[in-house]
């Protein structure tokens, strides 16, 4: 097995473009392999949550600002898309970035008064913000339909093809996830990304080295919120009906659990988290009542054995120092030998 992996690795390093091409072709062929709309529905959900968990990971994993109320930005994106397409007949493709920008603006608004807050204090603020947004959606009946929700959200139109089923929607979610992964990998490697990482590892040290922490933290929050908005905008026409019960705190915790299980601080972590959590939900369906117990045990075991998550950044403070200690011990032994 290991040989196979190392061969694949060598091949990948030699022919990066070809490997990406093969990967993409495989991904594009998935709907042909699974023509059942049920399975495609689950794959769509995995992709949607990969996008959401990825966005949250940018905030929680790359700059260590701990956001719990991520569902708020998701909610803003979904309602922006729904309201603008129903009232103003805006095109879905234009609304994707617009919804993202709305969510990012909201992110900035939360962020500005809380720049000095850290850790759990910031978490509590985002928690409250999430509830406020949900209550606005529930009570501003004139705009959001209140408890009646918004129904009949128009489906996207791709050069005359109406994207209706979970199979055709797969390509939208897939496209968004690929764009997200590409954009984020570029951002992380840029000056901005390095500033985020330095804030994560040690904010004081970062500031003493001349990193404008407030500015970069705000940017980080906005970037994460932007992708939640985009995910919301993609989700609203997918279900074609939204109301405030979609965006409760539970939804935020659900996304957070994917980030934690998958691993913070890497691009692939949240994608893995989304796959594991959503597949578990389906696999454990037969044991209905005990499903949530299994889920909780998974999180506890994760925290215990791999605090940085399945694919978490093991060389950072996120791993809780466990990995570092092991390595140090090994090095010491080597020295002795």
């Amino acid at each position: 097995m290991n040989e196979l992996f190392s061969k694949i690795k060598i091949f990948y390093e030699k022919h990066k473009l070809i490997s990406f091409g093969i990967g993409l072709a495989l991904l594009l062929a998935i709907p042909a392999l699974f023509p059942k709309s049920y399975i495609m529905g689950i794959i769509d959900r995995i992709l949607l949550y990969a996008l959401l968990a990825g966005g949250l990971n940018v905030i929680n994993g790359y700059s260590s600002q701990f956001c719990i109320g991520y569902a708020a930005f998701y909610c803003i994106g979904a309602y922006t898309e729904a309201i603008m397409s129903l009232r103003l007949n805006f095109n879905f493709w234009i609304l994707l970035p617009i919804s993202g920008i709305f969510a990012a603006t909201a992110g900035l608004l939360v962020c500005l008064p809380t720049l000095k807050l850290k850790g759990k204090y910031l978490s509590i603020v985002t928690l409250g913000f999430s509830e406020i947004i949900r209550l606005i959606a529930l009570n501003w009946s004139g705009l959001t339909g209140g408890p009646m929700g918004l129904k009949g959200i128009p489906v996207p139109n791709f050069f005359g093809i109406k994207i209706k089923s979970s199979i055709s929607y797969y390509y939208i979610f897939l496209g968004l996830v690929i764009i997200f992964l590409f954009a984020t990998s570029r951002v992380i490697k840029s000056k901005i990304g390095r500033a985020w990482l330095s804030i994560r590892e040690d904010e004081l040290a970062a500031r003493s080295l001349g990193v404008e922490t407030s500015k970069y933290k705000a940017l980080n929050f906005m970037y994460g919120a932007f992708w939640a908005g985009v995910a919301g905008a993609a989700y609203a026409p997918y279900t074609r009906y939204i109301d405030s019960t979609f965006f409760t705190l539970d939804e935020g915790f659900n996304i957070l659990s994917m980030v934690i299980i998958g691993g913070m601080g890497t691009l692939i972590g949240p994608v893995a988290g989304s796959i594991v959590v959503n597949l578990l939900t389906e696999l454990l369906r037969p044991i209905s009542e005990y499903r949530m117990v299994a889920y909780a045990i998974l999180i506890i075991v994760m925290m215990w054995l791999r605090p940085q998550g399945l694919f978490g950044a093991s060389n950072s403070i996120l791993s809780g120092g466990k990995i570092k200690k092991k390595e140090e011990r090994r090095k010491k032994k080597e020295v002795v030998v």
Partner: protein
Amino acid sequence: MKKVLSVLLAVMMVATILTGCSGGAKESNETSAKGEKVVKFGLLAPLTGTNAEYGKGFQIATQMAIDEINAAGGVNGYKLAIEVADSKGDQKESSDLARKFGDDKEIKAIIGDFASGACMANAPIVDAAGIVQLSPTASNPDYAGMSPYTFSIMGRQDAEAPFFAKYIIDKYLGAKSVALIYINSDWGVASHDNFVKGAEEVGLNIVAEANYVQDEKDFSSVLLKLKAADPEVLVIFDQGAVPQIVNQVAQLDWDVQITTLGPGTSQQILDLCGKNAEGLITSTPFFFDPESEAQTAWKKTFKEKAGFEPTVHPVVAYDCVYLLAKAIEMIGDGEVSRDAIRDNLQKAEIEGLAGPIKFSEAGDISRQYLICAVENGQFVIKEGYDYSK
């Protein structure tokens, strides 16, 4: 470590897909092995989560109906079967399961889900799959009209709320001024708006109104506001919070005629309010009449199987199965297809356990209502179904 994990993930993915496919195939073999013709329904119900009580009720009541029908020889030579799926009361899970039922050619109709939100999210899915989604309890007035395949037998609020205004407040109580307190949910707002329409027709004076969000516990401030307007009658539009509101009215020493739209003859009101509930008036489409043998027997069987007292919700779920059975019976010798069930369901008429059912063009029904009051710690029927005629 990472490699092992990625292998694990891949195995899991393949495993889900395989189990997903093979599960369906196995079941079809089983049914054909017995040599019986089977019509299978899918049930979407929240078996876990906050609404689990109702989901369990659905599961037990539908199974009761199916056992009865099968014991009596089935419908047109077909035995009925049901596949239960736990939607957790979550729209996304419910949608996934609706797609699963839609893909499974064995499933001829879907019963469920419990909450309006989930039903409405499923509407485009069942519309595309061409399968009936018959909800026992979806209360959003827009739901049934969303697709030809969506049906609800909860009863439209534009029937009950005006009935409440015209016949309970105006005719039965002879009151002229009312105060309203309602829950801010799809059901609460629709009921409130329809009540106001009915009240305008008979010239009722709505002196004050207030709403609250789900899970609120302390109503004293809103009740004080309503008390200040000094109405003759207070109307509460809710299901869950009615006992708390009734008790808090009593705590305020407010001597007002309380009426409530929504909970029906809920046992909880009697248990939690005691003396405070005395004289409370409510409307209900259904009441377990202690004198009716059929209903008492049904209630007893349900309680034996479920371990808790039935509300109106399992009763309507029970009626759903009979309604679908009726539709299959009406197909006659024709093939039992999803579309045939839809077409006949639209025309089907039955005398259900919870009253007569006949669909409107949109796919929902107008129910008739009883007026009940609490006397000596018990609900009693004050006026029958024909009071509004």
